């Protein structure tokens, strides 16, 4: 018990003396805070990106693409293949007995980011970014039971009507319901906006397949087939079926797996940038923390020595000093987390996805797991930055209590 009382006394002295060295303590807190902010901004970006792609695609939805194509953009699927899949085992049917299969067209068009709109509002001159235009088959909406139309309505088959993903609508100019968009030679009317669980689909434009085929002169060609599965084992049934038919040289995966694989590449890259940067910066902050703590120990040398003189142990000086360092670092960690939260959480960014060659809109997401990593980094800086000065504090000679001029 006595040791705890001692530690409490020394810690109180240490913590209470922080304001006396306000600027030194302040600079440590800010330095640690900046390091944590940089780390968390990158991690929140990676987490947001990952969440967008991971959240895309259900486990019970199969996506079929030409073997070896790796991404929808590269793939090509024929109408005959689509018909074969409609009759395949493992594919769910709707109440009327129609298979829930949607052959889809995937093409790239472009649009203008809201941030890129010039001052005069003339979109013709603005720099353009690639967007995905997806042509849906007749069952395209039925295969996606989680789809929510949040504004307007679905496109009517056989018309130049568009539905716009919610994320895309927020990030890009001129995509409100009622707006006309020029894609290629023809004008398209935006009739609705949809949400789909914060997924990549919300970064897309959707229209009726034949219309898109006309625009791009791609009659009878699709990029992928979406098929709803009857159950967890159905994927195997379906891929076995495809493997046994020489006409079906297709790769079969669940939509969830397809997007998860795409996600991991980019978010890995972001994390691989974020961590080394944060660790390098942490060394800088560590230098600051060590300095602050050494000067703190020097400033309290007489007090500590006096306590030692009247019988306090070296251990209590050690722990008290260490705790001071940890408190400062923790404050920095909390400040960094708050700054990230205020500045970055919920911020939308968009980038060119390597696999799809089009923009994916994502939201920075400061998850508790990400925030925890920032706090841990801060505490590591505090621990390393405190342990050496604490060691010195524990070894202050008692004669220092008498003080020297």
């Amino acid at each position, binding site marked *: 018990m006595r040791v705890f009382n001692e530690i409490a006394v020394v810690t109180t002295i240490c913590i209470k003396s922080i304001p006396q060295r306000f600027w030194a303590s302040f*600079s440590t807190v800010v330095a640690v805070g900046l390091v944590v902010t940089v780390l968390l901004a990158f991690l929140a970006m990676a987490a947001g990106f990952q969440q967008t792609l991971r959240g895309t695609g259900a486990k019970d939805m199969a996506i079929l693409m030409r073997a070896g194509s790796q991404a929808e953009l590269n793939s090509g699927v024929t109408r005959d293949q689509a018909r074969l899949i409609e009759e395949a085992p493992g594919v769910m049917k709707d109440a009327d007995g129609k298979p829930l299969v949607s052959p889809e067209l995937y*093409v790239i068009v472009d649009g203008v980011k809201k941030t890129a709109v010039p001052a005069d509002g003339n979109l013709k001159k603005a720099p353009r970014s*690639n967007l995905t235009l997806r042509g849906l088959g007749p069952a395209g909406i039925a295969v996606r039971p989680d789809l929510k139309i949040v504004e307007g309505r679905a496109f009517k088959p056989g018309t130049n009507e568009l539905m716009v993903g919610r994320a895309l609508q927020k990030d890009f100019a001129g995509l409100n319901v009622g707006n006309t968009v020029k894609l290629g030679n023809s004008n398209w009317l935006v009739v609705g906006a949809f949400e789909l669980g914060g997924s990549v689909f919300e970064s897309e434009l959707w229209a009726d397949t034949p219309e898109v085929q006309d625009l*791009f002169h791609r009659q009878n060609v699709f990029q992928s087939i979406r098929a709803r599965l009857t159950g967890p084992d159905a994927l195997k049934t379906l891929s076995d079926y495809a493997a046994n038919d020489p006409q079906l040289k297709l790769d079969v995966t669940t939509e969830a797996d397809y997007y998860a694989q795409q996600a991991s590449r980019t978010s890995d890259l972001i994390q691989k940038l974020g961590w080394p*940067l944060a660790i390098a910066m942490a*060394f800088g902050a560590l230098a600051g923390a060590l*300095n602050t703590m050494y000067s703190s120990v020097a400033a309290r040398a007489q007090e500590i020595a006096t306590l030692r003189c009247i019988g306090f142990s070296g251990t209590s000086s050690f722990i008290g000093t260490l705790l001071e360092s940890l408190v400062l670092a923790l404050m920095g960690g909390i400040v960094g987390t708050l700054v990230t939260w205020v500045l970055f959480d919920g911020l939308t960014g968009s980038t060119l996805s390597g696999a799809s060659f089009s923009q994916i809109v994502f939201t920075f997401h400061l998850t508790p797991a990400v925030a925890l990593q920032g706090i841990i980094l801060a505490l590591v800086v505090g621990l390393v930055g405190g342990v050496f000065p604490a060691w010195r504090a524990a070894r202050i000679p008692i004669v220092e209590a008498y003080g020297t001029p």
Partner: protein
Amino acid sequence: MSDLYLLWRNLFRRKLRTFLMMLAIFVAFVIYGVLGSIHYAFEHGVDSSADNRLVVVNKITFIQPLPYAYVGKIAAIKGVKNVTFANWFGGYYQDARNQIGTFAVDPESYLRIYRDDLRIDPAQREAFIHDRTSMVVGEAIATKYGWKVGDRIPINSNIFTNKADGSHTWQLTVAGIAYAARKSFNTSFIIFQYENFNESKTFGKDTIGWITLETDSAAVNETVAATIDELFANSTAETNTQSEKAFGKAFLAQLGNIALIITLVVGAAFATILMIVGNTMVMAVRERTKEIAVLKTLGFPSWRIWRQVLGESVLLSLLGGVPGLLVAGLLVTVLSKAASGAIPGLALTLPVAGLGLTFMLLLGVITGFLPAWNALRLNIVTALGRL
């Protein structure tokens, strides 16, 4: 003994503290050097492409194909000196993750347009033009996979199917290796004969990805671009013609605001050391208040002491920053090799290093200013406690 000696002794009065400061500055300048170089390579790589080169793409997006017939039509337009074209192949080697920028091109006209960017042995060039199943490999790729002239390499496509056997593989012979004639040119590519490609692919016959052309001079760029786009207006494939530079910039911009991210990170790193070093300098000078007062008592003029303190912080900044830049230069070289030419021209360039030195001086002056001012204004009587 000189003022510099005094300054040096003061700087290393507390070796650990000075070392820690140097470490913090070192880290910040490593970050600056690496990120600054990447930024510079991105900006400069695009900037250095020729002024009179235009790119014609499908108006819908550059991923949509153009008819092959456009090449001849564009060549006939007044003001167009040279025309070539390319088609994206989606190439990779062995594993789908080993993607290589692979283009089907017309050998003769392609190498003519890029004559100032690529260096290739004339004999190898001839071999490429005459061997239908050959390819020219950029230096970065040749080095990465150890390919030599004469090697027969299977290149896979994640888009196209080979009519011959229904596979996605084309067997290509290395006819030559192309070297960058200017530093910032990316040599991470493969080019092979369009004729071979066009005849062996199963779909998209007689279409090409984009057309690159050279105008008589940059002055006629706009006229030529307008003429081309008008020529194909209201056709099934309308075009969008812009300078290669603008095209490159627009593509980079799509990746996200790289410049902003780099600025923010470097800014955060500098703000960190500014806090740490600035505060420590104030502390360090406050510690020797009495010594400064003694120097003044001995008759040292205030400006000389001011100069010493400022010199100390500038020296500290240089001692941490210069090695930081050197290490950054080393890292950038390693990174450039590891990326095998994916970021062409990635090196610690003079402008980046020069700006780094400016930042060091600035950092030194800013962190030293307050303590130097305090030293300048220090009153002997109060500082020595002589009241």
